[in-house]
């Protein structure tokens, strides 16, 4: 059986990839996807902890279900906002969103 560490390292790697995507993406939808990636890293973390440490009460798995549900809601709201901004501006390029700055 694999050790807990491998899962944690995988999750950490996934999280870092998510952050990398977050920082470099110019397309708003890609940014949203990167955030999903980060949330999935968290899910992996929770699941592995739940499996190895808390296998009786599996609170981590319950937590994961909540995270998935809320991530879906967040993605829905996010896509809705992206849609409305696309209607107004005809672009989803983050560099173009510069109406607000000091």
């Amino acid at each position, binding site marked *: 059986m694999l050790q807990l560490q491998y899962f944690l390292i995988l999750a950490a790697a996934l999280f870092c990839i998510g952050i990398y995507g977050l920082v470099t993406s110019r397309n708003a939808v890609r940014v949203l996807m990167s955030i999903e990636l980060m*949330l999935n890293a968290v899910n992996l973390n929770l699941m592995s902890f739940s499996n190895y440490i808390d296998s009786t009460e599996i609170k981590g798995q319950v937590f994961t279900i*909540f*995270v998935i549900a809320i991530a879906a809601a967040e993605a829905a709201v996010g896509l809705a906002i992206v849609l409305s901004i696309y209607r107004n501006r005809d672009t989803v390029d983050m560099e173009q969103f510069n109406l607000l700055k000091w």
Partner: protein
Amino acid sequence: MDFNNLVTQLNAGTILPEGIVLITLLGILVGDLIFGRSIARNLSYFAVGGLVCSLVALILQWDNPQPVSFIGAYSSDPLSVVFRAIVVLSAAVTILMSISYVEQTGTALAEFVAILLTATLGGMFLSGSTELVMIFVSLETLSISSYLMTGYMKRDPRSNEAALKYLLIGASSSAVFLYGISLLYGLSGGETTLEAIARGIAGASGSLSLGLVVSLVFTIAGIAFKISAVPFHQWTPDVYEGSPTPVVAFLSVGSKAAGFALAIRLLVTAFPQVIEQWHFVFTALAILSMVLGNVVALAQTSMKRMLGYSSIAQAGFVMIGMVIGTETGYASMVFYLFVYLFMNLGAFACVILFTLRTGTDRISDYSGLYQKDPFLTLSLSICLLSLGGIPPLAGFFGKIYIFWAGWKAGAYGLVLLALVTSVVSIYYYLRVVKMMVVKEPNEMSDVVKNYPATNWNLPGMRSLQVATLAGLIATSLAGILSNPLFTIANDSVSNTPMLQASVQRQVAVK
């Protein structure tokens, strides 16, 4: 576990205030569905009524002998009651302010109120949650509804842009936060309630581990985003400028108060081992927030943006109360948030009034307003001066209490810095007052020259007037007659077991 035992363990009476808000919310959704737009305004008054009922329920919960409920997932101790009251009050005032604003922009009022109530619900639950899943769910309830409200003016590209920025930064910060608490779950050996986590971590390792520090840093990043502490503040000015003004009012008071409630509860309960580390981090955040918030606010030309930076700076002052970690420190924090509620909402009510009549929020457009609308000038001046800490207004007493507590705890440098930056803040608040009062009639801005006569009988204006008056009166009198508020703030801290335990621990260490 028999039924009776379960009922006492659930202790569901503690969430009666939230229940009332939820029922109001459902009532509004159903009412809007059945009757349509024709009764939208009545529905929003209904919402205010519901919030007032919820406030009453909260007051009745004061000194609840059994605060713990839902098997340790929720606590209704006085601290949570106070923060929930701040959230509820700010939501109620925000609804009063938003009626005419939302109607003028031609969007649906009832839906707006429904989303705002959802955010309120999230903020209330967040103030009392003591369990990770609960914290996460309520945090996201608050956040997602905030994104929706920010983007509510969907034909306005600025509102869109603000919403998108808010959503992307907010979602990523909550992912970071979540990563932090997932580590917390693992480190504690599979616990999710905060106290059990603290016990679990203490049992697992006597010394501090790298994992705990990483988890702390990630958690703080999430919280700092919510209270918009520098350097996690970049979203604040953009969102404040772009989103509808009533939403900004709620974000700057209600959402921020909930963030502070989360900060106190999570950090104090779950991270007692690394208390020095998180105090240090928050000291740094407080210093950065005060300096940067106040200095950058000097250069702003948009009123909402200036208030955005000012709210960053004000959060810095509040953080002083938190990092000193004494009983008076927490009490001063609660007191300041109360005072901040009045003055900031009052200021925003005035800004909304001005925007409704002129359609602009540039600071230079305020010049000469005294000639046209003395009442608005007076209210805005009082609220701004109070934010700047001019006696005898409420803000002065709030600041004095924080400085007093900080000095008592020996945080001399922090107090000195806060004093200096608050002098800087006087300058930019006074600049607006100067614009309005000092300018000669011939220097009047064009929008003020065309300023329409005040008509309070227009639909929705009456409630805005009530909100402005409430802000004005509370700001001018809450300082001089602040004794009850002081008592509430002090009692909320001294009757909260969690804070008492932390304070005792600190004393024991010293």
